[in-house]
């Protein structure tokens, strides 16, 4: 027990200061922080929906809750139910089996709600395009506010996308 706590103490903070990719994004971020305060009160609950992804995006998404990126410092946290959520984070091309669950999840989310589609597959279906198992991109099923590009996108890109979606409201 003592060794655990001494290791915690020796390691110190590992959270990196949030560094957006370029100066443009930085300006957007500053504008957002003022506006999100009015809209969602600096508290954003996210429900992650895997609509048929290869799980590459999920690994990056789980990265943003880890110590390095620590999304909770911005008041962003993941929840277990769409009823608790303000934002849906959808990954992957929408498969036939996930079309109805995705639509139902969207309906179960209370207003005001946002949708961020993460990864190239969510926009273009990626390597799965044309498959008999695929319905199409995420925006053919539910309205999408922001797409985050990348295969898979980095945690920084996902965070920037989330903040950009807040700005669109």
């Amino acid at each position, binding site marked *: 027990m003592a060794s655990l*706590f001494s290791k915690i103490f020796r390691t110190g903070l590992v959270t990196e200061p949030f560094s957006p990719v370029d100066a443009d994004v930085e300006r957007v971020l500053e504008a957002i922080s003022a506006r999100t305060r009015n809209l969602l009160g600096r508290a954003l609950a996210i429900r992650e929906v895997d609509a048929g992804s290869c799980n590459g995006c999920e690994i990056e998404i789980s990265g943003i809750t880890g110590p390095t990126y*620590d999304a909770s410092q911005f008041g962003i946290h993941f929840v*277990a139910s769409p009823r608790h959520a303000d934002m849906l984070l959808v990954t992957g091309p929408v498969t036939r089996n996930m079309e109805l669950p995705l639509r139902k999840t969207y309906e179960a989310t209370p207003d005001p709600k946002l949708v961020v589609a993460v990864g190239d597959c969510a926009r273009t279906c990626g390597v799965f395009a044309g498959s008999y198992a695929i319905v199409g991109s995420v925006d053919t099923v539910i309205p999408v506010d922001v797409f985050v590009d990348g295969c898979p996108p980095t945690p920084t890109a996902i965070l920037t996308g989330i903040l950009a979606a807040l700005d669109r409201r």
Partner: protein
Amino acid sequence: MTDYLLQLINVALVLAVSPALVGLIRWLKARMQNRRGAPIWQPYFELRKLFGKEVVVSDTASWVFRATPYIVFASTLAVALLVPLVRIPVPVALGSDLIVVVYLLLLGTFFLALAGLDTGSPFGGMGSSREMTVAALAEPTIALAIFSLAVGAGSTDLGRIVAETLNAPTTVAAPGHLLGFAALFIVMLAETGRLPVDNPSTHLELTMIHEAMILEYSGRYLALIEWASGMKLFIFLSLLANLYVPWGIATSNDPAGLAVGLLALLGKVVVLGCAIAALETRLAKLRLFRVPELLSVSFVLALLAVTSSFVVR
């Protein structure tokens, strides 16, 4: 009259401070995971946001689902009115009785379990059955642990128990006292849904207890339930503090004494909050089938506490 007014201020205090306690524990845990973490006042932002959101209710939900958040919130507020927090004695007419307090808390749990079943979602029913299992094992222990103090004080009135302990400071080191504290601490972890019984930050439906029952709630209903569970945590911690380490609590209505009482209460609750955060960093969640073992340990501790209170007296 002032007695009653001051007791109402207790309620305002619990309402105002409990989200910060939840935030403090989360922040401490984040620091112990080497994360930066959300500020301590984050739960206030979350509550404000939830009150402004739409409420989505399933078609299959009945009145139980809609009434439960108000019942849970009101019963917790009623408990806040009854327990000795900043000052003693609690006005007798309010009936600050141990048994009333224990069963008012159980009333909220009972309705929460009904609401979990109400919408017919599989996770809700699972959460309800688990919560009832834990409650059935934990409830007698709370009563028994505090009974060991009641035996010494000769009364089940919580204010009287605190006053008796203040009068006879040596009883704090009595075996009945120490065993009772250990028993009540374990039960507090179970009742307020902390590790190792339930994980308050879990996203896995299969491991949830408290969270599984409230999966269907949204908007202001969710806010009321979250706020009530924060208040329950605050009440449990202040009961632990005031019953077992009563020093600092105000015994009259003089303002300086009340200020000391308030600071002492907050200080003791913060220390217990730190203990919870350290414990949750160290402990893994117990397998569900091992929870009854932990709770029977706490029951045995409580039983020994009562026995030793009789013998030592």
